[in-house]
Each structure stands twice: as structure tokens, then as C-alpha cells.
């Protein structure tokens, strides 16, 4: 239910990163969201449409990678995936609440469009005479 507020922090962080690099547009935004983060991807997508409209990231591709919840099973010495939130190791049946991933709420990466005049790759050596 707080997806709108989260999306506002995404926009804030993305804008700061884009301005710092002199970008003229943000063309893609990639988030990593844990399956136990308490966030609904569909609601985030909706919030993205609302929050990003009219700004530097208007029209940006918006992707969400879901990070599966993994817990540590001490007896087996291995990680296991939590099925439907159940902290029971499928190998030995032991219970574990030692979550190693699955709560992520991250702005993973951005794709920026730089004005060509300042793009590092835009520098071309003079052609041979």
C-alpha cells in the first residue's frame, strides 16, 4: 500500500543519478524487489506511470526483477527457497527463519541517454589526412 511513496524515492534517486551524469533522459529503470518485501509489483508499475510522467524518465522502460526468498538451513549447510513463505528446508524438514535474501527493495540500475556532445564515446580522433 506504500508503493506510491516507494516509487517517489525511486524517482528521486534516479533523477539524482541522471543529473550527476549530465543525462538528458532516463530511458530504463530496473528494480530488484524481494518476494517478502511486502510490495506488489503491479501496484509499483501503476505508481511508476503516475510518478514518472512529465519528468526526465517519462516513457522509460520499467522492469522489476523479483528476488526469491532464500533461507539458510544450518543442519544441511545450504540455502533453500521458501515456498509460499514456509521456512521449512525441503531436504531435511528443519525450520529456519534465517532469511538471506527476499526483502530487497532496490533501484538496481538505470539506462541513461547522454547528449552526444558530452558523451565520452562521442570523442573521435581526427581522420587521417
Amino acid at each position, binding site marked *: 500500500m*506504500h508503493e506510491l511513496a516507494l516509487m517517489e*524515492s525511486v524517482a528521486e534517486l534516479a533523477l539524482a543519478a541522471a543529473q550527476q551524469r549530465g543525462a538528458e533522459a532516463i530511458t530504463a529503470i530496473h528494480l530488484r524487489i524481494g518476494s*517478502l518485501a511486502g510490495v506488489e509489483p503491479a501496484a509499483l508499475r501503476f505508481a511508476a506511470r503516475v510518478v514518472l510522467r512529465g519528468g526526465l524518465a517519462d516513457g522509460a522502460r520499467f522492469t522489476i526483477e523479483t528476488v526469491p526468498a532464500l533461507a539458510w538451513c544450518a543442519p544441511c549447510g545450504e540455502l533453500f527457497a521458501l515456498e509460499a513463505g514456509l521456512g521449512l528446508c525441503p531436504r531435511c524438514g528443519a525450520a529456519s527463519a534465517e532469511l538471506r535474501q527476499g526483502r530487497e527493495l532496490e533501484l538496481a540500475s538505470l539506462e541513461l541517454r*547522454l547528449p*552526444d556532445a*558530452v558523451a565520452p*564515446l*562521442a570523442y573521435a*580522433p581526427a581522420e587521417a589526412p
Partner: protein
Amino acid sequence: MCRDCACGHQGPPDRAHHPALLHQAPLKRTGVAATLQVPLGLRLLEQNDHQAQANRQRFEAAGVTVVNILSSPGSGKTALLEALARHRPARPLAMAALVGDLATDHDAARLRAAGLEAVAITTGQACHLDAAMVARGVEALEAGGRPLAALDLLLIENVGNLVCPAAYDLGEHRRLVLLAVGEGEDKPLKYPATFISADVVVISKTDLAAAVGFERERALAHLGAVAPGAAVVEVSARRGAGLDDLLGLLC
């Protein structure tokens, strides 16, 4: 002369004298806009986590144990706090509460009537408490003459919601989640994200267990599967049952 920037460089064209493109002369345009991939890995709740850490340090310095209480609306959070306020444990505890609600300070007023110093945190439309709201609540508590250092236990009643509050660290020492006997034994399975974060689960309203046909073993089995790290204590706020056990787990 350098053909790229007219800088006076002699000899054949050479990129080595343009280190890091420091020249002020305009760069050549390729006509193709550059695309830059920027890995960031920034946490969206970093600000909250930062404030939560500051809260935690403040709580540690004051020597107060802080408990974040989560549940659905109507699971008995306020009734539990009222019962704790009226309870007289063998070792008296100095307690106060911060109470989050979307609107009204009814819960805080109820707690004050029960003898517990309480500050209402009205969140407006926010579905959870965050660390900054708690910091402001602590300021209000101290301004009202209850310094943290004089407390043994600070109870934070979160907004009634089993989803959103779980994501927000408040700087608490323990997280307590309530499951009322009438809510359904499978509630932990439906809201694993919240239950897995619990240090203590209180099964509340146990005085109603028979009336609602509460299947205790099933509820305990589900809690054991979803929240194996949590201690479970059964409480009746109305009868005062289980309160000593609960305080033993919290302090």
C-alpha cells in the same frame, strides 16, 4: 596544430594529449546519442534504515527496551497494552507507548486512561510507522516529561496492517506480532512476510478460543513453519493471563 581542438599540438594526430577530454574546445559530435548503463544498487528505504539506526543508538544509550507491535486491525494491540499497563509484575517496570493510527488519538487516550503514558502518532494516509515518525514520537514523549532514560520498556503500537509495517525498521529491539484466536489459524501462511520477521508472536484473546472454535495445534504448527525463530506466548488481555510470560520474553 591539433586538428581536434586547435591546441597547438605538433606532430601526427594523437589522442594521448587529450587525457580525460580535459580540453574546453567542443568535442566532435558523432550524431549518435550515447546510452549509458549505470549499475546503482541503491536501497529505497536507505533513509529510513539510517534513521532507524539513529533511533537504535538513542534507545541503547537510554537503556530502554523497545518493542514494535504489529497486527491486523482489531487483533487486540491496544487491549494488550492496556492489560500491560494494569498488570503488576513482581518487578515493577516503567513503561510508555507510542501509538500509530491513521486518524484520531483514541488509542492513546485509552492507554492514558489505563495509566500508561502514551503519545499518538497520527500518520494521515500512511499505512505504517517509519523511523522518522518514531523519532518525533520520542521527542513528544520526552517533552511531556517522560525521558527515555527513565523507562524500562517503550511499546510502539504500529498501524493495524499485516503487510506494510514489516518493511520499516523503527530501531526496535524486538518485533511482536499478534494473532487473535478469531482471525483464522492460517493467517501466518497468508502473511508470511510479517510473521517471519517476528521475534515474539502473541496469540491473543485466548479467552474467546472455545467460542470461536480456535484450533490451537494447527495455529502453532503454522507459526512453527512460517516463523520458526519466534517465541509464542498465549495471552488473554481480558483475564490478564500470559502477561508475565510475555514480559519475560520482552525484557
